[in-house]
Each structure stands twice: as C-alpha cells, then as structure tokens.
C-alpha cells in the first residue's frame, strides 16, 4: 500500500516536470513483434513519422515474437511500466478487449484528442475484427494478412496439372493430390502452416459456418466452441487421411511448416499472404497464389476469409487509478495513428511487405501504380477478403475468444494426436471443444466483473 502511494507521488512529479522544458519531444514507447526484415520496415514508419514533426518522438522496440510481445506488455502493465502502443496479434484481440482499464480504446482516444481517422474507408474484414459490435474501434488496424494458397507451378507442370489454374474446390484438390504425388517431384504434395488459422478458422469463415456461438464471441463472453460440426469433421478427417497416405504433411505449429514451400519440398502450401517477400527471395521455381478452396455444395460458400496479422493497441501505464498517461502523450499516439492511416503510407507498407492494404483508398493507389500488373497475384488476398460481396456475416467477421492463444494450442495438440493416428478428426474436435470451453469459462469468470 505504502509503495503505491510513493509511486503515484513519483509519477505525478514525472508528469509535471516536462512542462518546464517544452523543447524536449514527448516520447511514445512503441513495442512490436516483427522480426527482420519486416521489423525494420515497421521501424522506418516510426522514423518517418518523427521526421514529419518535432513535438513527439515514437520509439519503436522489438520485443520478440507476437506472443512474447503480448506477454511482455502485460507484465509491463502489471509493473506500472506499459508501453504507450503495443502491436498485438489478432489472436490476442479477445484478451485485450477484456482488459478493461489496461487499454485505451481507439475510439475514446480519437474523441478525446480530436483527431479524425476515416474508418469507413477500411476494408470491412479489417474494421470488423477490431471494433465493438456497435462499430466503435477498439484498436488501430495495421498489418493485416489472410491465408491463401501458395503452389509450385513447376511441380504442377511435371505432374500434368494445369499450372495456371489452382482448383477452386476441395474436391478438385483431392483429384490433383495423387497426380502430384506420382509426378510432381516434390517430397510431399501438400502442407500447411498455421493449421488452425488456415484449416479451421478461415475454413469456417469462407464456408459461412460458426466457429463459436454468439457470433464467434463478438456477442459476449458466454461463447462456446462449435468446431465439432460435420463440415469441419469432413475436412479435418480428409487431412488426417491424406497424412496417412503421404498426400499431406503436417509441418508443425504456427508457421514452422512454411520453409517446406520455398525449398521445394511441398507443392502446395497454405499460409499467410505476408509470406510473399520470402517466397520471392528464396523460391527457385515458378510459383503462383490462389484463393482458399471450398467444398462444393456448401450453401453460401465461398464468402470472405478473415484476417490475421496484428493491430496497434493503446495502453495505460499501469493498474493505478487514472492510468498514468498525460493528455500530450495520448495526443502524440493519436497523431502517429493518423500518420499511419494515410492511404499513401498504407499503400507503400502493403507494397513493401505483402500485407494487405487496410483501406480501399490504398488498394486503389497500389493499383494505379501498376503494382498488381508487375506482381501477379498480389491482389489475391485482398480479393479473397472481399469475396462474396464484402458483406460480413456473423461467421466471417472474425473471432473474439478470450484465451484464444491457448485454445489454438489446444486444437493443434489434439490434431497432432490425430496425425499420429491416436484418434480421428471427430474425436480431436470433440476433445478440443471440451478443453477449449474450459478456457472460455475461466476467461469469462476472471473477466466478468
């Protein structure tokens, strides 16, 4: 108790001090989770912003992978030392939404500082993921991606499969896998990174089936997993069977399986659209990208896929009342966000990195500059996010589950058991549902009030 009083005392002194010397820029701490080369590109955005004005100075710091950055920011908050802005991956969104006074919602930030950002121009899939159900923005969309298909055109050619047309349906994929195995000349026809993001979460979204009740968690903390349904069972069982027959290979958790594509081991890879820079640099063969296949005969399919990547969250300094931030600091954060939201800045980010443009205006700029003519397929992820007319359904808006990092791990663990032949897809989904719901109930209990 005593310590806290001392700390608050020290803090108010610290806040008062800068008012004397106006010349010193106000520092905005910005923690991010992007390794090189993307991290450098992100830090360049901060440097560019600093060059446009002298009042604020954004200080970017790399804090490890996304999960590590998330944990570091939370620990810093508990120690009354949180960064002003933290880059948080989309899976952490549910946790941040439940964080109460730890975060400063972006709509509040903008209202208080009088800074305007036109969120209506943002892609619906991006806006929806980071806003409350009434449309108010909670965090600042930044680097967004989605899962797409990467395929090896040379291997397709060798196997006698049309290299310019990736099958639109899973039925079509099932037909070409044996051909690729027989004549494709790769170690395995197909693999995937981000097993749950690509094969369960985005799979459910494009087929317009729910991942969880209450609009995938957007409707409240009482949500329950609904992954154990016939369509997901069918698809996951197909993967398990293909793994047994050598037509598919599970490549490990998160993006551990990715290298199998550029090094020519897998002819087909499912992973983030942000994979582009690496493929361009490393692949020694002709390659193409395509939209995610769907099961023919599913009503409403295909519609838009959901995003991954990260957004920027504004954090209060610590748990003490008042949050510990000055008006000037928030003003600086808002100005920084305003800068990032400019279509020119966003379009350049998209063209440099392979992340999708988060605004329609930036998409138009990239098109005008001839980016998609010079880089065929770079617009596939954007088109996929707008597939089905771009009107989101409750199943394709996104996913907002508390403890989602843990739930993803649970799903991966259960499917690792299935790939080892210890259980079938239906059992894996049933177990994952039971275990995942425990996480959801614990989160609900800890965050109810």
């Amino acid at each position: 108790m005593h310590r806290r009083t001392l700390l608050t005392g020290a803090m108010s002194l610290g806040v008062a001090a800068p008012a004397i010397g106006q010349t010193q820029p106000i520092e905005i701490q910005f923690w991010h989770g992007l390794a090189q080369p993307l991290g450098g590109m992100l830090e360049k955005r901060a440097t560019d912003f600093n060059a446009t004005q002298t009042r604020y100075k954004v200080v970017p710091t790399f804090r490890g992978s996304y999960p590590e950055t998330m944990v570091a920011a939370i620990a810093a908050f508990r120690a009354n030392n949180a960064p002003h802005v933290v880059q948080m991956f989309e899976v952490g969104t549910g946790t941040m939404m439940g964080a109460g006074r730890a975060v400063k919602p972006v709509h509040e930030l903008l209202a208080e500082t009088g800074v305007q950002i036109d969120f209506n121009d943002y892609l619906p899939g991006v806006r929806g993921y980071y806003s409350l159900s009434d449309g108010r923005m909670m965090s600042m969309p930044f680097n967004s991606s989605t899962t797409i298909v990467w395929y090896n055109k040379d291997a397709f050619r060798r196997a006698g499969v049309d290299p310019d047309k990736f099958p639109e349906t899973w039925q079509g994929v099932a037909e070409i896998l044996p051909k690729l195995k027989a004549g494709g000349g790769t170690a395995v026809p197909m693999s995937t990174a981000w097993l749950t993001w690509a094969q369960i979460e985005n799979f459910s979204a494009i087929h317009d089936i729910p991942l969880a009740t209450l609009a995938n968690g957007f409707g409240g903390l009482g949500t329950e997993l609904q992954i154990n349904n016939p369509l997901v069972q069918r698809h996951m069982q197909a993967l398990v069977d293909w793994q047994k027959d050598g037509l598919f290979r599970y490549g490990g958790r998160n993006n551990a399986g990715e290298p199998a594509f550029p090094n020519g081991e897998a002819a087909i890879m499912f992973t983030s659209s942000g994979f582009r820079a690496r493929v361009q640099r490393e692949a020694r063969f002709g390659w193409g990208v395509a939209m995610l296949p769907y099961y023919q005969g599913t009503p409403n399919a295909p519609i838009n896929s959901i995003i991954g990547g990260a957004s920027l969250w504004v954090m209060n300094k610590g748990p003490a009342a008042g949050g510990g931030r000055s008006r000037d600091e928030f003003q600086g954060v808002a100005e920084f966000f305003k800068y990032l939201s400019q279509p020119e800045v966003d379009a350049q980010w998209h063209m440099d990195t392979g992340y999708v443009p988060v605004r329609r205006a930036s998409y138009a700029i990239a098109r005008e500059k001839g980016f998609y003519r010079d880089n065929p397929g770079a617009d596939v992820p954007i088109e996929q996010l707008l597939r089905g007319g771009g009107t989101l359904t409750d199943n394709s808006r996104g996913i907002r589950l508390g403890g989602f990092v843990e739930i993803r791990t649970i799903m991966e663990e259960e499917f690792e058991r299935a790939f080892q032949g210890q259980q079938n897809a239906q059992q894996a989904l049933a177990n994952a549902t039971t275990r995942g719901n425990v996480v959801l109930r614990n989160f609900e209990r800890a965050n109810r009030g």
Partner: protein
Amino acid sequence: MRKKVIFRGAVLPYLLLLPQMAVTLVFFFWPAGMTVWQSMQREDAFGLRTEFVAFENFLDLFTDAIYLNAAWNTVVFSTSVAALALGSALFLAVQADKQIRGSGLYKTLLVWPYAVAPALAAVLWLFIFHPSIGLVGRGFSAIGIDWDYRVNGGQAMAMVIVAAAWKQVSYNFIFFLAGLQSIPTSVLEAAAIDGARPMRRFWTVVFPLLSPTAFFLLVVNLVYAFFDTFGVIHALTRGGPGNATETLIYKVYVDGVQNLNFGSSAAQSAVLMAIVIALTAIQFRFIERRVHY
C-alpha cells in the same frame, strides 16, 4: 571431531547469520510464499480482478488429464535421462581412468558439453535430427525409417531424452572420474592378486565404492531432468507433438507465461516445490547414512 566456537554474547552470531538469512528470505521464502498465495487465487491476465479460490486450482490440476499426462511424461523423461546420462558417464569415466595416451585431451573434450548453453545445445540437436535439414534425420529417412519428430510423439520424446542426457554426461563424468581416482589402488591390486578379472573387480570392488557418488549423482540428475531441461524441450519440441514431450516444468511455463493463467501456474509451481523438497530430504537422509559406509 567437531570444532565448537563459543561466542560471548548473542549479538555477534546472529549478526554473522544475518546476510545468509537475508538472502534466503529474499530469494527463497518470499517468492515461495508468494507462489503459495497466488496458487490459491484466480486473476485475469492484467491483474485487475482477483478472486480467492482456496484449493480449487489444485483440485483442477489433479483432475486434468493433460496435467496427469505431463506428470507421466516427467517420470518417463527423468528416469530415462538419469539412466542414460549416468550409464554413459560411468562407462566413459571407467575408460578415461585407464592408462591411455592423450587421456588429458579426452577428458577435456568430454567436459565441454557442460559449458554449452541448453538452448544452443538444443539447436545443435535440431541440426542433427531435423527431418529435412538434419544429418541424422535425413540418414534415417534414407534407410527407410519414417522419421518425423514433429508428428511422432515417441520419436520426439526419444530426441529430447538424448539431447537432455547428453548435456548432463559431462557433469556426471567428472564426479565418476574423481570417485574412481579416489579408490585406493591397494584394494584393486589385492583383488587382482586374488585372481579377480577386470569385470569382476569392477562389479565387486569399484562399483560398491562408487555407490555414494552414484547415488548423489542420481539425485542431482533427477533434479536436473525435472527442473533444468526447459531450454532443451522449448527449443526442440515446445512440448509437442500433442503434449507428448510436455513435462511438469514445461507446463508451468505454458500455463503461466503463454496462457497467462497465473493461479494454475502457481499451483503447479507449488507442487514442483514439494517434489524438490522431498527429493532433497531423501538425499540428505540417505547420504548421512552413507557417510559411514
């Protein structure tokens, strides 16, 4: 035999004890007490809402199949690591104890792995066992073994056991070698004159005389396998595939650091603390008896 110092007053001895007591209080009792306190609470990740739940976290643990699976993994892992590390270290020490040319170099090389950081050691093993880039991994595939520790739990477990044991061999080696060298040669010579062959001399003379060392090492190795192998598992398998290599200590990390479930993680730490206290108590009792061997 014991030397006893008589202090005049009560102040000086307490003053002399104080630094040690302070260190123990700050670095052991305080965090341990915090752990026990936290193990009876549930809170959200940001520490804004806390609820006292008494022993609910512990009850949840012991009814959780995943936790019991981690406990079983720990038993398998620790016994195998201890057996492998002790067995190979003893074999190497016996070889190094012989009169051979270049034994100095041989001994030095054997001690090296101990200086390698666990994470680095794990990366080395990754380069050896990775199915697509590892030397041995590719070798296995070439001779027709379906080697992929990312989907095969048994293979993953075997790999982390080998990697963890390898690190510990050096440590055991030094102790065994010292133990061997302290065995009086007269005893061995007497046995040789009586006509005992080398194998028999080892099992009837050397091994019994080494048993205090071996027992000490057994406890140290078990403690190592329980608590010090996080780096190896984290770098190689992250507890996967499907929890196949998730041990108790790794689960503390997963639940505490990744899943931000502090209450459960603290409860698991408290269980581990009880285990290490028990192991230490056993060791002290046993060693005390063995001193008079």
